[in-house]
């Protein structure tokens, strides 16, 4: 069935709006909940690594926060999209609408939460006597597109596969935890033993987080890291879309 671009836009907007609305309407504290998680983690890691293990690093809390917020977007999106087709089985089996709008709107929704958390990052910058930089105006939009592409590509892949292999969900949970510790969120690259350092770009999330940190911390546009993450993003989107296209017409059968 041929559909207009306007239809796709409306579909994605109405789905995203629905999720945001549900989240914030049922609870006025909705906003606090969406920032509470990364803040709690920042607190835990601060206590564990700086207070107890005495790692020598300046502005460690700020360092944690600028990594944890983008990470939260990424991991939340993957965790929720894994089961998005299962959760909407009723409608997928009956109505012929573009199914990829479902993961798309979930990733978009988490991106909006991430945007809402920017003031928190600014607040912590100010606490540590730093200020937002003009380069954010270029850097943030570009980084949003890059991270969206990467996350949506992976989400399409995982959510499509999960319909056929239902334990994908558990695998994703384990992988997210593994990747978290292999990504320089808790530690700077300089702490990684030199011989392992080149391996860091093998993890698609590392350049992404490093680019965010450069941007938030020093207002630096890390073109190198941005380019590498964009490369990962394009590959993820390509493969994800291919897998989705191949499997989408079987969704209603397997549900």
């Amino acid at each position, binding site marked *: 069935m041929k559909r207009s671009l306007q239809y796709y836009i409306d579909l994605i907007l109405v789905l995203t709006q629905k999720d945001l609305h549900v989240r914030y309407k049922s609870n006025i504290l909705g906003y606090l909940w969406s920032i509470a998680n990364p803040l709690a983690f920042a607190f835990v890691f601060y206590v564990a690594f700086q207070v107890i293990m005495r790692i020598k690093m300046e502005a460690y809390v700020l360092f944690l926060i600028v990594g944890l917020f983008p990470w939260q977007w990424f991991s939340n999106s993957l965790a929720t999209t894994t089961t998005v087709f299962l959760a909407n089985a009723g409608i997928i089996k*009956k109505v012929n609408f573009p199914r990829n709008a479902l993961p798309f709107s979930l990733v978009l929704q988490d991106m909006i939460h991430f945007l809402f958390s920017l003031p928190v990052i600014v607040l912590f910058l100010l606490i540590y006597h730093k200020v937002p930089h003009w380069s954010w105006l270029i850097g943030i939009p570009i980084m949003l597109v890059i991270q969206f592409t990467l996350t949506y590509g992976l989400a399409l892949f995982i959510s499509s596969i999960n319909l056929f*292999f239902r334990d994908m969900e558990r695998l994703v949970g384990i992988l997210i935890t593994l990747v978290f510790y292999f990504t320089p969120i808790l530690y700077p690259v300089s702490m990684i033993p030199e011989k392992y350092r080149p391996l860091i770009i093998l993890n698609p999330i590392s350049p992404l987080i490093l680019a965010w940190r450069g941007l938030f911390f020093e207002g630096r546009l890390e073109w190198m890291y941005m380019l590498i993450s964009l490369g990962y993003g394009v590959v993820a989107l390509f493969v994800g879309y291919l897998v989705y296209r191949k499997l989408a017409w079987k969704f209603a059968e397997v549900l």
Partner: protein
Amino acid sequence: MSQPTIIFSGVGKSFPQYHQITGGIKRFIFNLPRALRTFKQARYEVLNNINFEIRPGEAFGIIGKNGSGKSTTLGLMAGVIAPTVGQVTVRGRISPLLELGAGFNPELSGRENIYLNGILMGLTRREVKKREEDIVGFAELGEFIDQPLRVYSSGMLARLGFSVVSSLDPEILLVDEILAVGDIDFQMKCLKRMLDFKRRGVTIVFVSHSLPSVRDLCDRVLWIEDHTVKKTGPVQEVLTEYAAKWAEPYSTADCQ
């Protein structure tokens, strides 16, 4: 005579045995050789050589036992699944009437759900907006329209669903067992609405186990048995034969 609205010609549908893999990657890998073999060879046949035509404005019933392939037939019409062999032709805008609450969100208000549901069904936001007042009026929910759906009764939910679907100006309406839920009063209302649709010239495809509803609504009936067409014909004729077939074993069993 005008062209048929829906044509099934030589349609067959078989599924791979998905449970071999939906059991999970772990299970699949540990049983790899066997799982692959059964997955490739053993297919479960749901429909075999289905042929029928539905004419414009007709109310067409589909009956048969559980698991005989009625819902699969409907899925093929809606275009959510593709036939393995044969061809399905559909002419006209098709709207599925969803079971209670599907495609709705309980936390959103009735009005917000009209947008959600209308857009999922293929309208743009602007098109929904044009119809909004109509839908609200048709649903007759009063001030409930701005309250969250979780406070709705099942009858109110159904009225909202019906209103959205009727505002889509469907040319073909697909109804799958919607009457199975709700009380008698509600079932009668649904039936009345569908008769309204019929009067307006909408083609209706109606899947049901309720033979009285089929008799009241449908002109012709397709009886599916053992995954293929057992009989197609005028409603009275097919229903009589269908009822006779199922009455037989039970009446003898009752005597013993």
